[in-house]
């Protein structure tokens, strides 16, 4: 999947404020992106959210998130994506090999709507490591610790079910709230890639975080 696999939990507050307006709310409730009957098939159950398999009926919603001018900056989607592009990402693959990514839809239990996607990308089944990614597509759900909850569910799944040795994340420097959350979650700063990506007109650093299973076990005996 070509979808960006940078890890981000929530956006900076500055952006959120500008974004929170009526126009967006209208768009959100339009038929296009909010079918009347969302159905969830929870795969991993959390307190406020569930992680569900991605759903081809929600493709328009995913497409909206991927193209969203505010959300996509943090997700590093710098090219437009059509509904057909996104459909291809989520259609069952012909290949019989084990997939190198696993994607979930983040389902808000109380409001009964999908609010984002998360999962593992670049899964290396031999070295047993993967890149964790997260994207809350609906700004109204930013800064509510839902990303933190999703990441904890994912980490548990990665270590307890997929038997990973290491989970890592790349977060770019200006996305302070995301790497603060990662550090709070026990991720260790592994290194900094200098001027690795070009965002908003400047080259910025990428912080690389890691969690080894043995370090995770110390807090989850």
């Amino acid at each position, binding site marked *: 999947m070509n979808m960006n696999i940078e890890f981000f939990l929530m956006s900076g507050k500055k952006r959120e404020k500008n974004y929170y307006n009526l126009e967006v709310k209208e768009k959100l409730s339009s038929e296009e992106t909010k079918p009347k009957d969302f159905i969830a098939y929870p795969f991993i159950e959390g307190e406020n959210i569930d992680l569900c398999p991605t759903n081809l009926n929600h493709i328009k919603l995913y497409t909206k998130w991927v193209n969203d001018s505010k959300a996509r900056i943090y997700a590093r989607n710098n090219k437009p994506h059509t509904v057909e592009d996104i459909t291809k990402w989520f259609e069952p693959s012909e290949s019989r090999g084990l997939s190198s990514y696993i994607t979930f839809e983040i389902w808000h239990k109380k409001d009964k709507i999908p609010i984002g996607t998360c999962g593992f990308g670049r899964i290396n089944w*031999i*070295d047993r*490591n993967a890149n964790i990614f997260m994207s809350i597509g609906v700004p109204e759900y930013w800064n509510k610790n839902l990303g933190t909850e999703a990441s904890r569910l994912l980490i548990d799944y990665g270590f307890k079910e997929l038997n990973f040795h*290491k989970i890592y994340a790349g977060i770019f420097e200006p996305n302070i709230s995301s790497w603060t959350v990662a550090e709070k979650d026990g991720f260790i700063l*592994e*290194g*900094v*890639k200098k*001027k690795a990506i*070009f965002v908003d007109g400047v080259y910025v650093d990428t912080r690389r975080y890691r969690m080894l299973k043995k370090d995770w076990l110390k807090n989850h005996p």
Partner: protein
Amino acid sequence: MEHEEVRTFISGKNVDLLPGDNLEHVNLYAKWDNDQETRHYARNIFPTPPEDYKKGIEEEKKGTPQEMNFEIYHKGDKKIIGYVGFNHINWSDRNANIGMVIGEPEYRSKDLGTEAAALIIDYGFNELNMFKIGCGMYVLNTASMKVAEKLGMQREIVYKEQAWVDGKYVDEYEYRIFLDEWKEKRKELL
């Protein structure tokens, strides 16, 4: 092989870089990549038949390439000794990673890899307008590490226990050089 046949794309002192992905040489690529010693350092853990290269080469390619391969041609011996290329070129961030194999063992440890890498780095910065070029290797691959250091690259990240090699988890290193650093270094190397 006559020099005229070899379609030199970039010319160096001891080696030239020729267009890679040559359909007639898929057996050579397969020989190198499946070789036990070579693949140990290159971390090719799955067998690759020549047909796989053929398939990759014949695939229709559209748009600006995201990877690029060259054959390394030894000028004195008129022989193709390995390949060097850019993997994962990112055109908006303007960076790429180098991958290289000197497939013929008798040409190793002769600074030919350093020369080939210097040529492709220069090409990346001067012709492809790159901003940052990197390469990675796991901790036991000291030969590649030496090449990176000779090229003036700096170690940027140590990926802890990233790779499973010879029955244990080992660290991986990532090296990089920026355009402004290369402007100085190239005077020594080219």
